[in-house]
């Protein structure tokens, strides 16, 4: 029986569910739709991976949807976002077409990057999506560079970057925290702390218990929140964004969450127990949001209709992606360099 890395999901330091205002029900309903869409896309991708249709490494964000959906509503479309290779949910939440996303993961011509980027490199600058990244931590200085660009141009855009608890011990994180704070860059550092750095509980490798305290050494504002509560995420990100836009510098947000599926498709998950996962299902973002909606007068039937609509939509997207052609052979040599 592996030791549990998980404390109760509500064990957050600074903001609790009760401390944020409620969002309108129709907005929450839309958030539910998006969250369920992300879930269904991820589940479909896992099925495709299990049937051998997806090569390489694919990391799903089942259980992480709260941070992505809360963030997407709180930011402007032109704000920059970078994220980790576990980044399907951020991209979908910001509006990426599920058809082209799944086609990309399958390496098909209709993928948003012609099948050259795949699961770990989701990107669409028209949605402010500036790239998921296959190298842990590499997306963080890039987001700071985007914030720096906004600052030089003075165009009011901010940047947000998502990373996991495992990224905290990459040196470049600390280089970036320092520069971002020193130069008051308009950036939000969002740590999706799912308590595991890949297959190892973070408690086993970290000398620091509360990660959000790290950046306080650089003088940066830092909060820990329940990352599974979409309203909490929304208000926290929105406030951080307003500070960034006002020139008050970066904010570090640690959103506590839990990854319900393996690190990647095919993960044996020997590092945690079934019981732990079962327990966490009670706290996961879709359940939290569903309970809120039921509490606030939305019927189960309404949610049922939403789910059915999304099921059909995702089924169609999978169908589209599987029928998308392979890229032309000649595409292997293109795009190494951009043309002027």
């Amino acid at each position, binding site marked *: 029986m592996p030791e549990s890395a998980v404390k109760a999901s509500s064990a957050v330091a600074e903001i609790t569910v009760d401390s944020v205002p409620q969002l309108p029900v129709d907005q929450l309903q839309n958030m539910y739709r998006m969250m369920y869409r992300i879930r269904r896309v991820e589940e479909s991708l896992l099925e495709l991976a299990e049937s051998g249709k997806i090569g390489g490494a694919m990391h799903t964000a089942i259980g992480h949807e709260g941070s992505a959906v809360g963030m997407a509503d709180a930011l402007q479309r032109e704000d920059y976002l970078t994220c980790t290779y576990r980044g399907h949910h951020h991209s979908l939440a910001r509006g990426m077409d599920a058809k082209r996303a799944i086609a990309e993961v399958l390496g098909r011509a209709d993928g*948003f990057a012609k099948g050259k980027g795949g699961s770990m490199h989701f990107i669409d600058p028209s949605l402010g999506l500036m790239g998921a990244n296959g190298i842990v931590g590499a997306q963080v200085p890039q987001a700071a560079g985007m914030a720096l660009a906004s600052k030089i141009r003075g165009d009011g855009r901010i940047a947000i970057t998502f990373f996991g608890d495992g990224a905290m011990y990459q*040196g470049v994180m600390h280089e970036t925290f320092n520069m971002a704070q020193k130069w008051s860059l308009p950036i939000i550092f969002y740590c999706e702390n799912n308590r595991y750095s890949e297959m190892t509980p973070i408690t086993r490798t970290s000398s620091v218990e509360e990660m959000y305290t790290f950046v306080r050494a650089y003088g940066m504002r830092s909060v820990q929140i329940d990352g599974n509560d979409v309203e909490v995420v929304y208000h926290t990100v929105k406030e951080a964004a307003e500070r960034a836009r006002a020139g008050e510098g970066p904010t570090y947000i640690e959103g506590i969450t839990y990854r319900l599926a393996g690190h990647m498709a095919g993960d044996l998950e020997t590092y945690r127990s079934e019981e732990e996962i079962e327990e966490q299902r009670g706290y996961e973002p879709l359940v939290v949001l569903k309970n809120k909606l039921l509490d606030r007068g939305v019927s189960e039937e309404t949610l049922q209709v939403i789910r059915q609509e999304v099921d059909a939509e995702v089924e169609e997207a999978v169908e589209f992606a599987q029928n998308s052609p392979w890229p032309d052979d000649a595409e292997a040599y293109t795009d190494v*360099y951009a043309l002027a």
Partner: protein
Amino acid sequence: MRKTTYIQAINEALREEMRDDESVFMIGEDIGHYGGLFRVTRKLMDEFGPNRVIDTPISEQGFMGMAVGAAMTGMRPIVELMYMDFFLVCADQIFNQGAKMNYMTGGVVNVPMVIRGQHGGGKRYGSQHSQCVESTFAQFPGIKVVVPATPYDAKGLLISAVRDPNPVLFLEHKMLYFTRGEMPDADEPYTVPIGVADVKREGSDMTLATFSYCLLQALEAAEELEAEHGISVEVVDLRSIVPLDMETIYASVAKTGRLLAVHESQSNCGIGAEIVARIYEEAPHLLTAPARRLGMAPASIPVSGPLEEVLLPWKKNIKAAVLETMRTPTFA
């Protein structure tokens, strides 16, 4: 025609591009207030301010990553690495990130940035501050590698590099900084295209394909070989090694029949090996004798001046390699 130093040529190019394009900014260690360890960026902060000439902490990976990120949004950052040897500290951001971004994204996001700085031996800086790095960069598709040897080419190519939509590594050899060369007047705009080699000396017996500081060494060697041995060496300045202008090399070898590629980075698996391999693959019929390459012997660079001189593929070693090549029997 006026004459300027190599440093002055680069400084002019930086200044002109900063003036012409507000998306251009510079970032690096000691480049602002101090004006750069080698004074290449001097007085630029006075004109453009700390927002566009950014002094960083000693965090190469961090500011290289920030430059990549800024470039992804359409800015045109120019990163100075104080010593090119430090690329190893931030290699992920250069190679895994900047160089691959356009490809990984199917051409959706490009990275118009310049990484510039000095490399090379000759000043007794020892193993961690003297190596030439261009061959390593040539191993990674997605980044162009520019290696000018003259002030004229340096200015023209740096302007082209800044305007290029891709990451460009711009390599300045520390021995070139105080060399002087003819330049058009300061207000006379010009560029030198990336990927076009230039014949710097005509000859008939053999082709030397080289670049950066080795070019100056090769030109001196060629003069002495002509005077002392009656060997007429044609010297081709590649000016950039990615992309590599093989056609100009072929045109020269079509005339001379012999080829020696010379560079200061490692000989093993180096750009010279690539040049020699390509002529054997693409145009071996032009050769009348085996093609060769000369680079650094597989040793790190020592501090001791005489030992450094033993290793560097400069004039003495070039002359030896030319004579050796000329003695190689022809194929026929």
